[in-house]
């Protein structure tokens, strides 16, 4: 079953075309990585899918057209996202913001997410006072609160140490497998990408350059030339 589908996504800023007729189809429970050089249009695509920026084209969630829905409505339908920069509430306690996130979607207290992301020991601390790695975890926990079935992650490993990135990759893999969550992830850390992705879409200059399983992408000479280089 297709969880998330995008057809003909086009986004222009003045005379610059950030995305040109991009289409994407992600199976339920799949982890799809979006990779490509800076300016390829990865974050723009995530923004288009989540409703952050208006764009041309059609976005479907579980078969329903959500192209014209606000981000809030998309969230209530089960599509959640995190941001490139940590997007939390620094003056609120960890517990208060998880409760806030849970109340918006299912009216629960969200305490299961606190445990799942190992945030309970930090629950009563202000989010601005906890470490950067913990803030990134909280960011992810906010996106996961309320049991969304589709998750869009924009560089979740940015700024994390090697060890933290490895733990994050394992955690994402575990969540996707256990909860059956569909994940679309933009990430520059190729260790994380190749560790968790079922399928990889490579973007270049706002267009899809290649799409396939990690081994195929690693072996694709166009992708190696355009982006992976020695990382492959």
């Amino acid at each position: 079953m297709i969880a998330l589908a995008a057809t003909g996504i086009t986004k222009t800023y003045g005379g610059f075309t950030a995305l040109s007729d991009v289409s994407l189809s992600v199976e339920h429970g799949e982890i799809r990585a979006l990779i490509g050089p800076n300016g390829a249009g990865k974050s723009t695509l995530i923004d288009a899918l989540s409703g952050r920026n208006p764009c041309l084209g059609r976005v479907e969630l579980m078969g329903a057209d959500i192209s014209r829905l606000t981000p809030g409505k998309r969230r209530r339908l089960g599509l959640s996202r995190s941001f490139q920069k940590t997007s939390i509430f620094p003056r609120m306690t960890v517990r208060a913001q998880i409760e806030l996130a849970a109340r918006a979607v299912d009216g629960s207290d969200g305490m299961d997410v606190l445990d799942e992301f190992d945030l309970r020991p930090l629950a009563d601390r202000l989010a601005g006072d906890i470490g950067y790695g913990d803030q990134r975890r909280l960011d992810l926990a906010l996106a996961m609160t309320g049991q969304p079935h589709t998750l869009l992650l924009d560089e979740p490993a940015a700024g994390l140490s090697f060890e933290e990135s490895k733990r994050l990759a394992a955690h994402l893999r575990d969540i996707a497998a256990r909860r059956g969550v569909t994940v679309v992830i933009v990430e520059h850390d190729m260790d994380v990408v190749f560790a968790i992705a079922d399928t990889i879409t490579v973007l270049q200059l706002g267009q899809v350059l290649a799409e396939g399983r990690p081994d195929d992408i690693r072996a694709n000479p166009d992708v190696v030339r355009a982006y992976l280089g020695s990382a492959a």
Partner: protein
Amino acid sequence: MKNSLSWLGFAALGAVGPLAAHFIPAGMTLSLLAQATFAAIFALGIGFLIRQNGTISFGHAAFFGLPGYAVAALLPLKLMPLEVLFAAALVGTVALAFAIGLVVVRVHGIAFGMLTLAIGQGLYEAATRWRAVTGGHDGMTLRLPREVFGLPVKLLQQPHGMFVAAWIVMTLCLVAVWLFARSPWGRLTEAIRDNEERVRFLGYRTLLPRAAVFAASALLVAIAGMLSVLYNAFISPDAIHWTASGSGLIMAILGGSAVAWGPLLGGFVYFFLKHAAGAYTTHWLSIIGVALILVAVAFPNGLAGLMIRQRSRP
């Protein structure tokens, strides 16, 4: 435990006013205290807007004067009892503020400030030019009945009676603001203030809560205006001029809006500083200006923030 202490604090605060009124001889001081209490409630409304929405209004004085003008204009028509008229004027002011809020809270920072300034000054111009209804620059005198809310009007027009009444209303307003900040709505609006985009992506609508906060702050300011009208039986365009909004802002900044009671403190400090300085010089505004700069630079969380910091020192 902490909540019980807060309730005890509110009860003590509520008792301070009537007790002070008992010991302070009737006259100028009590009259000043009554007017300082109106100013404090006014500042509470402006501080509430800063605290919950993170926005600074240069036009809130409009909501201070609007219900007074409504009562003054409608009272001679004898359409309804004065108490109902008071309630209708407050409801009307809040409804108007909510409608204005739906437009102005869409923008932030300077744009928000300028929009509120424009709306406030628009109402000021209407009050000065629509002489047939508002009395123009001369203002309007209210001919109040003998009794209001079961109390003799004379009692509420004496410093002692009005100070006690205004003090109790002020305490109730503070309790309301405190309860709001602890409610899910309070948390939601604080979250919107800090990171509106994330709140939208969590699944909330952000426009209505922000407009509701704008309307609630207008209600607090309107209550202060209503008390002032009841006490003075007079309303003039000066009450809604942008400089009155500016004074309210100075009070809120002096007191600090990080805690609910900060603007109240700022209101009293501003009012008595103004009168003390005014006794020595006509340039009292320059003294207020220096005080404001000192507080803004040295104590960004205002006098309330300073007091909390002193208390929490080991």
